[in-house]
């Protein structure tokens, strides 16, 4: 189980029995459109507020993942979820509808892998047969909470990121044909003193590198063990910095392909998203949609997803606090 300092190895190999990824209209115009189960044309999803739309997105995705597993909500023991709203209302309110015993989590955008790591731990230790894990985010609800009203005309700097409207969920089971969750590394909170909420990539990059370094050290492997390593939502600016830091720390990242979910979901040429994507939904829909599909097609055998989160609140940055960041890594493999 515990390996090294901060990692878990799942020897019973919890299997990802099913997955679902649902996104909004803007993500549907991006290059990964074919990998999503549903692309909504309406940012409101037929609801009357952004917050309700986000909740509906989470609910729909969770239900779809359960359905794809050939199960009913009653057969799932636990639901682990989180989002970016104050008091994680989107997750809690969907748990009310699903009525599955629920643990609400907050790790900002790292919640996608935080929930997957914990769900795998529970399933691996025999604490449950089936666990549902998911996260969601909504561009407009995040803009409203963290920045300005959605229609307010403020100019965003080139380091800013665009929050993904989307939700991703998986059902983990004790038995199954994979892909399997094989290990996870829980990250430390790292704060390098960046306080600009429009430059979160730079704030989060050190946390991502710290967790990656810990993962390779704890498991005594090299980056080349994986076919692909992705960070959650560092986007262009943070990705370049992460590359610089990996080089500085002598991590041989060139052995593998290193990419970032925040740079994969949008088309930089056509979509005006500044540095790239962010949000709880970003790493969730890219991993559970695009990357798991590629694993199913046999293009990838082993991947490491390092979801990054900026643990700020709208009040903390107004009070001139710097942004503490975190990253959690989960490895997914096609064979046992």
């Amino acid at each position, binding site marked *: 189980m515990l390996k090294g300092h901060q990692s878990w190895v799942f020897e019973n190999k919890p299997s990802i029995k099913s997955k679902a990824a649902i996104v909004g209209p803007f993500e549907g115009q991006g290059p990964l459109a074919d990998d999503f189960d549903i692309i909504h044309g309406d940012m409101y999803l037929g609801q009357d507020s952004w917050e309700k739309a986000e909740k509906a997105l989470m609910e729909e995705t969770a239900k779809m993942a359960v359905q794809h597993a050939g199960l009913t909500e009653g057969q799932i023991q636990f639901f682990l979820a989180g989002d970016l709203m104050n008091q994680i209302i989107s997750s809690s309110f969907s748990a009310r509808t699903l009525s599955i015993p629920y643990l609400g989590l907050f790790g900002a955008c790292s919640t996608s892998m935080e929930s997957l790591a914990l769900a795998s731990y529970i399933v691996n230790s025999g604490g449950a047969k089936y666990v549902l894990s998911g996260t969601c985010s909504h561009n407009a609800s995040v803009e409203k909470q963290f920045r300005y*009203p959605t229609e*307010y005309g403020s100019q965003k700097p080139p380091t800013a990121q665009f929050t993904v409207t989307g939700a991703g969920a998986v059902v983990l089971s004790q038995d199954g044909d994979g892909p399997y969750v094989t290990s996870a590394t829980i990250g430390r909170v790292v704060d*390098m*003193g*960046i306080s600009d909420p429009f430059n979160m990539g730079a704030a989060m990059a050190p946390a991502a590198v710290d967790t990656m370094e810990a993962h390779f050290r704890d498991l005594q492997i090299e980056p080349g063990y994986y076919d692909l390593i992705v960070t959650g939502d560092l986007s*262009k600016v943070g990705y370049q*910095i992460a590359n610089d830091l990996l080089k500085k720390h002598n991590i041989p990242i060139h052995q593998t392909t290193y990419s970032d979910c925040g740079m994969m979901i949008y088309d930089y040429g056509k979509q005006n998203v500044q540095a790239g994507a962010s949000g709880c939904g970003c790493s969730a829909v890219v991993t559970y949609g695009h990357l798991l599909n590629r694993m199913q097609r046999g293009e990838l055998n082993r991947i490491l997803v390092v979801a990054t989160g900026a643990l700020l609140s709208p009040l903390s940055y107004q009070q001139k606090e710097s942004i503490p960041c975190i990253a959690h890594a989960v490895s997914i493999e096609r064979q046992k």
Partner: protein
Amino acid sequence: MVSKKKKKLTPVQQEYQELAKKREPSKFTFKNLYRAFLVGGLICLLGQAVQQMFIHWWGFEEKAASNPTVGVMIIISVILTSLGVYDKIAQWAGAGTAVPVTGFANAMASAAIEYRREGLVLGLGGSIFKVAGPVIVFGSLAAFCVGIAYIIFDPNIVGG
């Protein structure tokens, strides 16, 4: 404030911030200035045209025509905000759309649209000045200071 904060950073943090700064894309200052000048100027030109319309077609005096002109500009801005176009123009134009009266109208209209869901009184009423509020507060303060300066330095008042 910034220099005080910088002092508190550890050497590792300082080293990292220098590294991060190198990867930060430039903010296209020249392009922004040019765009702001162009769009801001166009908005003012439109305002001028509206004012001329009031003067020539509806017989307003030049001074009296400015009030309905501002009203028209505000309505145009609110309509563009409601259609979800104003923020797109603003991303391109920067200060060009923020400085004229249309920017103020956008700040109020966008807050009104956003917080309407939280109710008419506490939502719309309580939050409509969320973005525009500081402009009013510091605008009034500035007017007060100018007023005081006017009393002190105006020869007509002082000299009697």
